[in-house]
Structures are given as C-alpha cells and as structure tokens.
C-alpha cells in the first residue's frame, strides 16, 4: 500500500535535512508503530507523507498503491485515502465539525466518483460514527477544536478519521496529553476503525499506547532514519532500556553511524 524509499526532506527554504533516507513499507491490514526520541524526525515523516507545504522532499519517493505521490497537494493525497491525525489539532473558530466533515467527505467522494451525501443523508451517516469515539451529538455543532480540552481534540481527530474512512492513517502522537480514560476511548476507536483493508501508522514516544493498540510492526527512528524494525518486543526492549542504550548497541554493531 505505502512504500517509502530513501526519503530525504528539508524544511522548505532551509538547508537542514530532517529526514535522511527513510525506508518504510506498509501493507493493507497492518498496524505499524514508529517510535523515537524527540527530534528524531518521526512527526516530520507524517507531515511529509500528508503533503505539508513546510517541507520539501529532496530525494527518494513516496509510493501509494504504486503511484508516486511526492508531488501531490495535501488534498489530492486525502482524496487517495491518506489521513493525518495531528499532534496539535488546529482550532478553527467559526467552522463547525459538521461543516468541515460534510465538505471533506463530499469532496473526497466527488474525487473518487462516489455519490455525495445530501445534508440529511450525511446527518445519518455522521451520527452513526459518533459512538466510535463515544461522542455526543452537540459536539458536531461546535467550532472545530475551539475551546476543546487536549483530550477532546485528540478524540476529534479519531472521529474525523472514522467519518472520512481513510485507507492509510498516520496518527501523530495521538496518545500525548491523554489521561488514562481518554487513552482507552481513543485506542478503542482506532481499534474499531482498523480492518483488513486499511492500515495505520502510529507515531509515538511511549510504549504505553501500544498496550491498547497492538502493532504488527514496530520501528525505531533516530536522526532522520528508521534504524531498527521488529515486532512488539522491540517496544518492550525500548521501554526497558531506553533509546540511548539501543543507539549505542547499534553503533557497536555498525548498524548506525
């Protein structure tokens, strides 16, 4: 589904390279976790994949179902089924959740020659998604993320994911700032959305999230590269020993510079 090959990226207009040759392959039905310390480039990776204009790809390619999407705009990537759950969801006063989601849903439907939903049909559809994330009706009438608590913002990202039904989702530190109850609700929602036809890539700092959403693959990212991949035991090893130890071991084995 997704194949990232030797991806290098810089901040637009600057020389500092943040991604230094990322390779990643994600298939349908898989859940991946990318872990890494602050500044390792894991959030940047999710932004680059979703088409954030702040970054420029200088080398390598991002293939989505075989198509190179490196030059596509963010909305075109969304039309193909890409979704980014933001680490810091943006407050947009004056536009309700309902308005954004109807506009987004129908735009994506149009781009894929699917039928658009009229306001009444959309109402039924969106209501059916509310319990994925245990949301109340009135939530739809509120301005996007405006005045939301940290937990509500993260829940809203997963709710949007449920409504837009993407093929591939990047969840950028969706667990950060969540209390234990909110973490359970959010994880539960993600687990409900995950199926054999879609794929999820979680970006996280902590192993905690992985107790609730079981990944098939765990990758460790450091200094702009994925330096090690494995299964859940890799996350456990990280939790026990920390990133420093892993970095040293890899250096000894000559796997990292």
């Amino acid at each position: 589904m997704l194949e990232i090959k030797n991806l290098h990226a810089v901040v637009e207009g600057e020389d500092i390279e943040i991604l230094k040759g990322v390779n990643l392959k994600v298939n349908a039905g898989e859940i991946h976790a990318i872990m890494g310390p602050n500044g390792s480039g894991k959030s940047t990776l999710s932004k680059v994949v979703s088409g954030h204009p702040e970054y420029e790809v200088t080398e390598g390619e991002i293939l989505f179902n075989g198509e190179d999407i490196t030059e596509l705009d963010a909305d075109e990537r969304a039309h193909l089924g890409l979704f980014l759950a933001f680490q810091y969801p943006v407050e947009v006063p004056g536009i309700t959740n309902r308005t954004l989601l109807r506009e987004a849903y129908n735009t994506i439907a149009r781009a894929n020659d699917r039928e658009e939903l009229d306001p009444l049909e959309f109402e039924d559809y969106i209501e059916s998604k509310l319990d994925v994330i245990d949301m109340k009706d009135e939530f739809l009438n509120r301005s996007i993320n405006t005045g939301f608590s940290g937990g509500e913002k993260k829940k809203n990202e997963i709710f949007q994911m449920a409504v837009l039904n993407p093929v591939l989702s990047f969840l950028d530190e969706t667990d950060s700032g969540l209390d234990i109850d909110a973490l359970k609700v959010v994880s539960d929602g993600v687990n409900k959305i995950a199926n054999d036809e879609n794929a999820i890539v979680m970006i996280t700092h902590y192993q905690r999230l992985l107790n609730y959403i079981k990944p098939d693959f765990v990758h460790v990212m450091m200094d702009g590269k994925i330096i090690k991949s494995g299964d859940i035991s890799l996350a456990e090893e990280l939790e026990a020993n920390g990133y420093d130890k892993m970095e040293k071991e890899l250096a000894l084995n000559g796997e990292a510079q």
Partner: protein
Amino acid sequence: MSEVIQKDTMLSYINGEIQSNANSVAIRAINVRGKDALENTPFPTRKDEDWRFIDLNAIKKNRFTSVSYANAAEVGDISKHYLPEALNTRLVFVNGIYNEELSSISDLPNHVIVGNMSEYGDHDAVKEHLGTITNYDDDAFAPFNDAAFEDAAFIYLPEETSVEAPIHILNLFTDAEKAFYATPRLLFVGEMYSKATIIEEHIGLANNVYLNVPVTEFRLFAGAHVHHARIQRDSKQAAHVSRPIAMIDRNAEYHSYTICLGAKLFRNDPRVIQNAEEVDFTVDGLVLIDGDQIADTHSIMDHRYAHGNSHQLHKVVVNDNAHSIFNGKIFVAKDAQKIDSFQENRNLLLSDDGKVNTKPQLEIFADDVRCSHGATIGHLNDEEVFYLHSRGLTEQKSRELLVYAFALESVESMEVESVEKLLLDEVIKYTTRD
C-alpha cells in the same frame, strides 16, 4: 492683479445651488442651518487628524449634481430587495426621494409612525428632535445633508410600544447620466420602554458614480431597546459618507451593526452618546472590501454618565489594493464611574497590497472604569489552512472557508433571518470571487 481666494468647501464639489423645497417648517429650519454651516466649513484635508489616512479623491475629482438634473434611470422591479419579515413595514427612498408606491406600511400598533417626514413636519417629535444631536464639529458632511434633504424616514414609537416586524428603510440608487448627490435622512424617536428593529439598507442598482451622504438620528428614551442594522451595498463607484448618531437615556439599549460591502469610498462616523446612567450599547462593524475600495470608520463611544456597558467589535477583511481605516474613540467623562467598555478591531489581510490603519483612542477622565481595547492585523493562519487542506479541501476552498468563518460572527448578530441569509450570500460572494 487681484487674487480671488476660493475656499475649498463641500460646495466646491457640487454643481449648482443646493435647493430644498421642503414644506415643513422644521425641515426648512434645518436646511437653512445646514447651508450656513456648509459655507463656513472647510472640506477636510490630510492635515486634519481625523482625515489623515483617507484618500478623498472619489469625491474630489467629481462635481455632483442634484438628482433632478442627473437624468436618473427608473428604479424598475426591486422586489428582490424586499425583506419577507418586513413586507408591511417598509419605506423606500430612491436617490434620497421618498417613493410611496414602493413603500408599504400597515398593521402598525396604535400611534406608531413609520413614514415620510415631510408628512409629519408638525409632529412634536420632529420639531423637538430633528437635528438636535447631529453636532459634528467642523464637519462638512452632516451640514450638507442638513442643507439638502427634503424627504426623510421618520419613525416614532410611543411609550411602551413594540413593533415586532423589523422596519426596513430601503435606500436605492439608480443609474444616471450625471454623477449626483443624495442625502437620505432617518429620524428615530423611541419613547420610554419602546422597542424596535431597524434595517437600514443602501443599495446601488447600477455601477455609477454618486455621492451618498446619509444622516441617521436615534433618540432613545428610558428603557427603549433598539437593534439597528446598517447594510451598505452602494455602487462600487460611489462615495458614501455616513453620520449615524444615537443618544440614549437610562436603561436604554442601542445595538448597531454596520456592514460595509460596497462603495469605492466609505466613510462612517457612528457616535453613541450615553445621556443617563445605566445604558448598554454596541457599535459593531463588518467590512469586506477588495479592488481599490476604501473603508474608513471613525467611531465615538461617548460615556457621559456612570454605569454603562458598551462594546465594539469591528472586523475587517481586505483584499487586492483595498484600504481599511479604523479609529475607535472611547470617551469617559470625569464622573462617569463604573463604565465597562470593550473595543476590538480584527483585520484580515488577504493580499500583499492591501492596507490597514487602526487606532484605538481612549480618553478617560474617570478613575473607576474598565475599558479595554485590542487590535490585530494578520494574514490567514497557515496551520489552519493546512489542517482543512489535509482533510481533502482544496487550498482555495480552505481559505474561503476561513474567511467565511472570520466574517460569520458579525453576520450572526443580525436577528432577522432574511438579512442574515442575505449577508451570508454576500460573504460567500466575496470569498469565492475569481
């Protein structure tokens, strides 16, 4: 050689004599007063503090003639401008002249008057209040209206009467062969505990040059509650200089909302005078301009007595080469304690060439008050744009939606559904233009 020094006054930009044929003694007295003031009031220049930023060329490069000599076009079918909520509470003025045929007034509560002032020239409220609060010092425009107006909207509410339907004052401007001037006038007198909603509209039906100089006077007695929406959709070639003023008594509430969409040059000087303790008033504005439009608001919130609440939210969106100016004065007199006044001016710049000047001006002589103000000027937030963009909306659509959201807050205060709808359509038209 003798040198003739020609004084630059409002009259320098007017063709011919200003003539008013008003029948009413009260109106004629104001006409005379206006003429005297006009001749002695210099036309503003950039050297005047209140006119520093504004380019008045849209007025100065023209000579405006009386509409009777302008060969103005017929008004035609204007029914699309009627408000369904105000079908029987509508006064129509075409180029400043009352049009009885298009107006429709019926079903008003007893003793309420909504009509052309020339028919009510002898009414006590006209004699007592017309022209009494419009003292704009050294102003060339209010006297111009004083001098030239013949017809005027007159609204009178006796004690403890409420007019449920909004009262629609529809000022229309037609195409014409010559640039003309018009001086719409509105006098509202609300006795104790009266209540009404006034929708004052200015619509240019063509794309011609004219000068619109309206004066509105609102006199609210104790406990009167008035909602006053002013919607300016003049021709994009027109100049519009407004003098809306309100004086309000104890426990009165006056909430005004000015929406600026049209005119090449718009200058608006709203002023609210607190004439007793315990009042509540609003002086909101929404300005959506592009092309080479200029919109200048110089407002005064004049607190003369204690215990008053006032607020002002002035929102502006500027595109292309357009230029917005805002100067918000808050006056608090020495003994006017416990005033709570709030002013906010938010500007959204959509282009690199647009221009915004903003200045709060607080003159506070009381020591126990709460007065705050804030002004922001900014472009659309890139992160907000990307957030919507990443959800599948085009970048253009994302931007449109954000501008729409910015303007929405002001539109939602309209209280009259069809007016809200009309303004939303205007906002969409503004944000989605090619």
